[in-house]
């Protein structure tokens, strides 16, 4: 009976964050025109990237690392779908801290950083559900090959979801810098470019120089895009397990850092108009 009570208690604690995710998902779906616009944008980006890789492969002949042209295009579709579904929280956190609207969240019985993670996940999941079929359809259209296995797809979904959690945590971590510095945009810009380069958005880490590969290996950025996308087009159980462990450790580290940062920041909070 007592055990049941504890379970029920914990379930309620978890349920509140899942509800935040659900509401955020619903809120993201309220503008169908915006969704259509973003899909056109995704199509254009993929078209440009595909054209670019075609030119590179035609001058390179046999392929790059273990990538064929078709695998590369599916890889790009996988990373782009994740990238465009990433957290949009930075600007919101920044404005909430600056305007003092954060007060509304601090008087509620939840842990604000976790609230933000689930809020971000709700909109990211909606975004990915809409974008992924489009990205894969475009890839299929351009390659006329299905570079996707069931294992690959499932590992992409799992690693992609965890990648989005990590992305949300890093974005929130940067967003909370607004407690200490005037503008968080430059810091976020650096993070964004990390995802572009050593995070494997534009070029898979495998075909980069050895030194950059090593740097990328020791940083968490590759878990957001590169690892889910590689697992998707080139599934291997070992790589999947290693990625799962890596991304989980990165999430725990970022959760700890973000919680510490929030704890320090909330002590020095001052709000305009009180």
């Amino acid at each position, binding site marked *: 009976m007592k055990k049941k009570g504890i379970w029920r208690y914990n379930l309620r604690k978890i*349920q*509140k964050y899942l*509800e935040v995710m659900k509401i955020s998902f619903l*809120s993201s779906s309220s503008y169908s025109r915006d969704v259509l616009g973003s899909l056109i944008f995704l199509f254009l980006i993929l078209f440009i990237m595909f054209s670019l890789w075609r030119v590179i492969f035609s001058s390179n002949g046999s392929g790059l690392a273990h990538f064929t042209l078709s695998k590369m295009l599916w890889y790009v579709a996988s990373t782009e779908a994740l990238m465009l579904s990433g957290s949009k929280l930075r600007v919101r956190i920044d404005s909430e801290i600056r305007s003092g609207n954060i*007060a*509304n969240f*601090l008087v509620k019985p939840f842990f604000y950083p976790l609230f933000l993670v689930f809020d971000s996940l709700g909109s990211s999941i909606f975004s990915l559900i809409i974008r992924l079929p489009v990205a894969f359809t475009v890839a299929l259209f351009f390659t006329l090959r299905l570079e996707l296995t069931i294992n690959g797809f499932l590992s992409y979904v799992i690693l992609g979801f965890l990648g989005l959690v990590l992305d949300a945590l890093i974005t929130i971590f940067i967003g909370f810098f607004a407690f200490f510095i005037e503008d968080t945009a430059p810091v976020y810009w650096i993070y964004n470019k990390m995802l572009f380069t050593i995070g494997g958005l534009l070029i898979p880490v495998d075909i980069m120089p050895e030194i950059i590969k090593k740097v990328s290996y020791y940083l968490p950025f590759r878990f957001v895009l590169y690892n889910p996308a590689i697992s998707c087009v080139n599934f291997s159980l070992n790589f999947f397990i290693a990625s799962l462990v890596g991304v989980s450790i990165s999430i725990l580290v970022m959760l700890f850092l973000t919680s510490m940062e929030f704890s320090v920041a909330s002590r020095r909070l001052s*709000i305009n108009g009180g």
Partner: protein
Amino acid sequence: MTGTNSAINTDLGIFCYNSVMEKVIEVRNLRKTYVSKKKKEGFLNGFKSFFKTEYFDIEALKGISLDVSEGESLALIGPNGAGKSTTIKILTGILYPTSGTANVLGLVPWKDRVKLAYQIGVVFGQRSQLWYHLPPIDSFSLFSKIYELEEKSYRKRLNKLVEIFEIEEYLNVPVRKLSLGERMRCEFVLSLLHNPKILFLDEPTIGLDVVAKSKARDLIKRINKEERVTVFLSSHDTLDIESLSKRVLVLNNGSIVYQGDINTLKHGYMKKKIIDLKLKELKGDFDIKGVSVLKRKDYGVKLEINLEEVTQDEAVSEIIKRGEILDITIEDPSLEEVIKAIYEEKGNLEV
């Protein structure tokens, strides 16, 4: 929570109402100092400050003490920058004070913020807690989970609040399509869903039109009376204070300059009324006992009534004889004037 047996004036100078009731808020010598950057004038000084930043302290609260009893409705009043919002934000656990103690429902707000959140409701007039793109019913459902309410009790509570605040027709309309008054009513419902013991209201009627303001006041009053929810209100609007609270606390520059009965404040310090008149035709002058002309232009006149010499009714009945009135507004003196009067007469009243 602590019970008290007596108290009108304690040795700390804290004015206590409903002394037999339990205290739900106890504040002692609360201070809050903000540190701000000093910006000097001119290009060179501005550039110098890039290398060497100077800071200065802003004392938002200078050691305030107050008590609030269960079921009471206390109003904080004061001009901009007086420390009203800072007080509310410390008592709700949002801000850490620089020094002093506070006890809200037996908890230290800034240490037990999450625990306290289950027992209090907060409405900030200029900030919304509702999800902008979704109808209010979705936000209510979310908050029922956040406050860990049982589905059955949530439904029952929601139905009651929907009826009291008359929001049934807006429940399924996206928040972005609601008027400010309608939105505020939904904000109240959201803050009361979990049966809070104390309702903190920071400028709850700001920006509302006259009708919406009056409606909001009636509803807050009803919740205070029927559910015995303690109301801790801050406002610029003297009408909010008059209609909602018996006890008022006047803050100025971070200090309490008056703490006591609203009627004593009114009769003791609001000894003047300002009348704005528009007449069709001006007959004679305004040589009326206790009435002085502040401004006169064509058919518009601004008058000041000294209530120590003449009552408002007497003055108005004399004024209307001076011509056919197109428009008339009667206002209280500004808060600044009331505070000035309090300072001038400080010592005559329990401060």
